[in-house]
């Protein structure tokens, strides 16, 4: 898609809007705020750059990666819960935070599987749920490598299927 050059420019603008903000008609517009705004910005930046990188723009891919990266970045907020100056989701939801992430992941992956009917969604779901249920450090490591592990398991599945 011709949007390949657009991606770095869009990421730069989103980054600028998030960290520094811009002045428009005397008002400063800045995306850095609490209540999941950071997670939404991260999700949107990733979702948009992936959707634009495809040969044909796919809004479902944008929605899927937006939600997925929203959940992942919210999970990463757990470690900073005591240091955060802005109200992040773990701070607001408290003990219900992991339950919220778990339910969100179930809904997201179910919808994605119904739409794409691809096993890679199932691998991704299993790894995400394992990360949410695990201790924080282990969970972070699993989340870090979740896309790579999902692809590895998917390719392994294809290999096994072809060799049978």
């Amino acid at each position, binding site marked *: 898609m011709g949007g390949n050059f657009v991606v770095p420019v869009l990421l730069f603008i989103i980054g600028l809007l998030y960290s520094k903000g811009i002045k428009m008609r005397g008002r400063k517009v800045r995306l850095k705020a609490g209540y999941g705004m950071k997670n939404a910005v991260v999700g949107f930046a990733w979702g948009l750059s*992936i*959707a634009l990188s495809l040969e044909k723009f796919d809004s479902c891919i944008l929605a899927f990666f937006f939600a997925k990266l929203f959940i992942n970045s919210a999970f990463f907020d757990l470690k900073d819960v005591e240091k955060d100056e802005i109200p992040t989701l773990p701070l607001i939801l408290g003990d219900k935070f992991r339950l919220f992430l778990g339910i969100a992941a179930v809904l997201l992956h179910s919808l994605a599987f119904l739409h794409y009917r*691809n096993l890679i969604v199932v691998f*991704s779901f299993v790894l995400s749920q394992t990360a949410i249920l695990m201790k924080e450090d282990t969970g972070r490591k699993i989340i870090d*490598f979740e*896309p*790579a592990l*999902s*692809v590895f398991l*998917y390719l392994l599945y294809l290999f096994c299927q072809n060799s049978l």
Partner: protein
Amino acid sequence: MKAIYVSLPTAISATMRLYIAYVLTSSKPDCFLLIGAFFLSLGVYGFDRMEDYGRSLLPALFT
């Protein structure tokens, strides 16, 4: 160098996310774009992490 090393998982994840998008949409993976995504995210996150290591851009690149 440490900044680049700790950014490797993020760069690999970024590349694999793009690959997952190719798989889900049943489109042919663009190797050039995948390599580009890897180095772009390695560069961006590496630079971001360098701030944590005292903004040492030159030593990080040349040591």
